[in-house]
């Protein structure tokens, strides 16, 4: 603080608190809504304080009883989301780190070509090429499978780029020393490069986990079998029930459950999250 101005400081805190409240308010309402019985919501206006149906609503959302709301049990959908998010995060990191290693530490014919092919994917989000990508996955028989959910999303230029930038900052002396000691390429990768990349891998993992968990369009297209529904798309199925009022108390309970894992990751690993966010956007 430059100067002591109590009023300005007070205003600062008020604005920040208003911001925090504006950010949290929708979640609070969703939580409140998820603790009422079904007829507590359809009649009139939503109360602002939680009701007494917390255990009943969350219990029925998690373990079944949502068929009326148009989706499989939330626990199953959360498991699917978890598998998909982990597969995307781990898969992306694994294939990116080895390809970046090859591009930085080897000289081979078509190295630049490989680099540019990978680089091009930076420009093509799945939303703009959905129809042809869907056809490819359908032809490969990967609809309604975990492979179909995860693999088309694991190629990423961003991660390769990030690792390449990082590898370029590793001092050459390390490699010289390793070679004097007789280490080969794989040995150097596992004993030197990988341990040095630990924070980068962790930061990237946080971002990619959130990215994978929050996928919406892709699971919507490739799953028709309820047992492969992910939670984020399952909510849409519950909102879009034909010919009846949506079961808002269960939808809100599901929405809260869908938020918990990624929000927990952001808050618990805040520093890695910020690092990952800043570095992937460079």
């Amino acid at each position: 603080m430059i100067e002591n101005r109590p009023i300005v400081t007070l205003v600062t805190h008020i604005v920040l608190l208003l911001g925090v409240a504006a950010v949290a308010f929708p979640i609070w309402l969703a939580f409140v809504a998820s603790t009422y019985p079904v007829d507590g919501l359809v009649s009139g206006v939503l109360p602002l304080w939680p009701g007494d149906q917390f255990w009943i609503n969350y219990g029925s959302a998690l373990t079944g009883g949502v068929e009326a709301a148009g989706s499989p049990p939330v626990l199953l959908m959360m498991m699917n989301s978890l598998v998909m998010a982990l597969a995307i995060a781990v898969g992306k990191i694994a294939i990116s780190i080895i390809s970046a290693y090859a591009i930085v530490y080897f000289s081979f014919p078509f190295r630049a070509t490989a680099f540019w092919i990978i680089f091009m994917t930076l420009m093509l989000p799945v939303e703009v090429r959905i129809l042809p990508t869907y056809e490819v996955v359908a032809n490969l028989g990967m609809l309604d499978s975990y492979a179909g959910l995860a693999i088309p999303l694991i190629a990423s230029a961003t991660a390769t780029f990030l690792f390449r930038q990082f590898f370029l900052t590793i001092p050459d002396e390390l490699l010289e020393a390793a070679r004097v000691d007789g280490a080969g390429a794989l040995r150097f990768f596992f004993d030197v490069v990988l341990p040095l990349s630990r924070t980068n891998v962790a930061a990237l993992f946080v971002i990619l986990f959130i990215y994978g968990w929050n996928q919406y369009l892709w699971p919507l297209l490739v799953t028709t079998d309820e047992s492969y529904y992910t939670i984020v798309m399952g909510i849409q199925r519950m909102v879009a029930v034909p010919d009846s009022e949506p079961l808002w108390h269960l939808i809100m309970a599901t929405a809260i459950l869908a938020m918990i894992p990624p929000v927990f990751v952001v808050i618990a690993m805040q520093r890695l999250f910020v690092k990952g966010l800043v570095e992937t956007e460079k």
Partner: protein
Amino acid sequence: MQHKRVIFQGRVLPYFLVLPQLIVTLVFFIWPASQALYQSVLLEDAFGLSTEFVWFENFEDLFADPSYLNSFKTTVVFSLGVTTLSMIAALVLAAMADRVVRGATAYKTLLIWPYAVAPAVAGVLWWFIFNPTIGVFAYALRQLGYDWNHFLSGSDAMILVIIAASWKQVSYNFLFFLAGMQAIPKSLIEAAAIDGAGPVKRFWTIIFPLLSPTTFFLLVVNVVYAFFETFGIVHATTSGGPAQATNILVFKVYNDGFIGLDLGGSAAQSVILMLIVIALTVVQFRYIERKVQY
């Protein structure tokens, strides 16, 4: 292309290392993208029995189609709304958070977590809050004399998706604005304070101009976000309605391709979207090159 001074010799190993990524890239990115390019110049009959090469007819049809032009307009309004709202809110909050000494970390934590909420979930939350029959905000607005109904009014629906999309994006912008402000040397601000400039004057004459690289970067990122990552918000709530009032471009590609089964038209739309992404990426990279000098 930059390279190491010391490298490994290897004939086979490097190919094995790049192969997984290359295969995924070729199968799921390059091939579908080229398919989209190819289909965009074909016309297929309704039963998929015959196709005809039609040059740029699909594109001509698109730009003669009022609903496509309307979708373009909707997207522009939507992304302007999202970018303006989320950037201004984030800038104000970041300027405040940059000032506080006590509790700065707590505020930061409490402001960044909406980043982790899926767009579709954010959409459903606001959809619920503004629900004309049971929503709290709809009720409050009725008390104020405004009859909110996003099922009937196109502008209400547009405001709803803009709010939902901005709510989620504020945290991202906030983080980058705050980082930008904290990178400004304190001595500049202290010097201005000694010269008698108050907090507001300091913000507009020192902090805001020095933030311009961050602001420009966020501008591009927010436009990309509004164009391409908001599909979930629209699909889970308004589905482009009422009367196409929220039919943004990414939603229309999906709708025409998967629901309308107009392959050529949808492919042509994909190609246009790709061109937009490429243009935005180029703009962003240009900017990064300049940032190095700054």
